[in-house]
């Protein structure tokens, strides 16, 4: 442990854009590895369900091209949570881009591919053994939910990455993966303290988001025996003890305890000090080994197909009785659907969700200003059904009630809804909902993550 472990986080996510100038500066420190995640569950259930990530192929290719051409041979590149969601189609999509780039650039590369998609039979067998446990606020998850699911992935920790790194590869391309694990894997293998390794990973994995002001740049880290130094490269980027400490709050429920597969990172007693004008020194993190190794599951099921009508209301007489009016509109739509489509769709098989912008669309039942009358209300009327064809038919039946449902103050025919589009609805296609928020307790983590080495060029 005489020499520090040095590493570069190429950006907050593959596809978000590597800043080449600062990346080259960071690479001049000769890191032992380069890592970046390529996904997050915060992108929502769609990407896992659709089998397609949030970034376009060109955006992914731009970043992977830089990683392939700028990182010297012998410095492994770890990529986690492939193509946003880390399922098998997501891994395949990024692997195909690596194949294309190896061809174009005339490079010979070895890629360790670590898959994290879970088979339904395997999950059912764990469930029967009582080895699937709920996390906070988890939905009901049983064998029927497993059957209904479109895709379920397990979030790997550092161990499958460490196994993959031993295969003498240029790239490790991982399915769903803990972001911090991408940075903790190598230092832990080299015997550095686990707490520091995980903490440093946690800090750099979002790129320059951990800096005082979010600007383009590249994060660099060094792990020494009892402390780590976090340094941003880029014009005007700077870490301060406060900016680094605050980053542990971001998108985490608990700012101090961070659960990983093999244990919990505890930064309650971490210390942060300014090391040089832009770098922060961290120390004091602990890692508490878990009694049981656990793998977080993320999964989605099809929520249906949707058509959406967008429009607005400006009539103050209508706005002051909006709740009553929209309730009557909904009833009229339901009656029409029952009358016209009753032989094709059960009442329980379709749904209408109306978001009233200007009223309480954003906060729903938690909106404190619900009684303040707006001068205009925007409506997104979402019709969900088992097929796109049915969703469209329901949208067609919804248009007339929205346009013409009366209010008592006006006599004669009214048009009370300003349609934004003609035709009135937009086809949104299929969409998904999260169906699991649990951990699996595998007998061996290798049961959940499958590794193969692929060679290109």
């Amino acid at each position: 442990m005489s020499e520090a472990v040095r590493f570069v986080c190429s950006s907050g996510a593959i596809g978000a854009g590597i800043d080449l100038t600062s990346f080259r500066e960071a690479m001049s420190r000769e890191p032992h590895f380069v890592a970046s995640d390529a996904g997050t569950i915060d992108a929502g259930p769609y990407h896992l369900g659709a089998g397609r990530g949030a970034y376009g192929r060109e955006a992914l290719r731009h970043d992977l091209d830089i990683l392939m051409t700028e990182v010297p041979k012998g410095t492994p590149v770890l990529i986690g949570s492939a193509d946003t969601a880390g399922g098998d189609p997501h891994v395949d999509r990024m692997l195909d881009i690596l194949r294309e780039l190896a061809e174009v650039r005339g490079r010979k590369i070895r890629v360790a591919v670590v898959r994290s998609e879970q088979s339904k039979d395997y999950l059912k067998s764990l469930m029967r053994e009582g080895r699937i446990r709920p996390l906070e606020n988890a939905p009901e998850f049983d064998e029927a939910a497993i059957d209904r699911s479109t895709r379920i992935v397990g979030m790997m920790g550092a161990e499958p990455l460490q196994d993959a790194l031993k295969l003498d590869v240029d790239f490790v391309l991982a399915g769903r993966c803990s972001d911090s694990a991408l940075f903790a894997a190598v230092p832990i293998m080299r015997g550095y303290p686990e707490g520091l390794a995980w903490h440093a990973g946690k800090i750099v994995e979002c790129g320059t988001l951990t800096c005082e002001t979010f600007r383009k740049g590249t994060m660099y880290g060094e792990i020494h025996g009892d402390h780590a130094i976090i340094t941003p490269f880029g014009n005007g980027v700077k870490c301060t003890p406060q900016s680094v400490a605050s980053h542990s709050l971001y998108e985490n429920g608990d700012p101090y305890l961070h659960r990983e597969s093999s244990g919990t990172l505890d930064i309650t007693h971490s210390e942060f000090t300014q090391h040089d004008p832009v770098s922060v020194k961290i120390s004091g993190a602990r890692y508490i080994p878990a009694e049981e190794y656990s793998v977080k599951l993320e999964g989605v099921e099809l929520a249906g197909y949707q058509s959406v009508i967008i429009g607005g209301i400006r009539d103050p007489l209508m706005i002051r009785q909006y709740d009553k009016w929209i309730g009557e509109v909904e009833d009229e739509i339901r009656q029409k659907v029952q009358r016209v489509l009753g032989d094709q769709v059960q009442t329980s098989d379709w749904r209408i969700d109306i978001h009233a912008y200007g009223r309480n669309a954003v906060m729903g039942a938690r909106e404190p200003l619900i009684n303040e009358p707006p001068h205009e209300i925007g409506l997104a009327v979402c019709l969900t059904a088992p097929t796109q064809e049915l969703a469209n038919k329901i949208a067609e039946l919804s248009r007339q009630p929205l346009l013409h449902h009366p209010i008592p103050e006006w006599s004669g025919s009214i048009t009370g809804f300003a349609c934004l589009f003609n035709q009135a609805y937009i086809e949104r296609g299929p969409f998904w909902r999260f169906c699991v928020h649990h951990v699996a307790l595998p007998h061996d983590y290798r049961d959940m993550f499958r590794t193969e080495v692929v060679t290109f060029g």
Partner: protein
Amino acid sequence: MKLHECASLIRSKNAGPFSLTFDIMFSDAKVYEHIKASGVLNVASLSALLQCSPNQMQFFECDNALAFKATIPRALPAGDPADADLHGGQQFAPLLDIEVGELD
């Protein structure tokens, strides 16, 4: 003085698809300490404003980050057909006008 007049950032965000977390951050240690000492930010006051049960709220005072943090269950999972804030980024408005008293 109102909270938004002295905080450097008040934000909300998903903490996973089933939880929502609120951060109230300061750039000045004196202001943070004043508000911490005043006790206006606590589980009872925040859970009332955010309309959730106090025993469902986790609340933290993060001294080294000069920040307060509260985490609650989401009303609906992110991406649910009836949910309209996928990232949970616009749920903090009720916190802006918390009265924090006069700063010294």
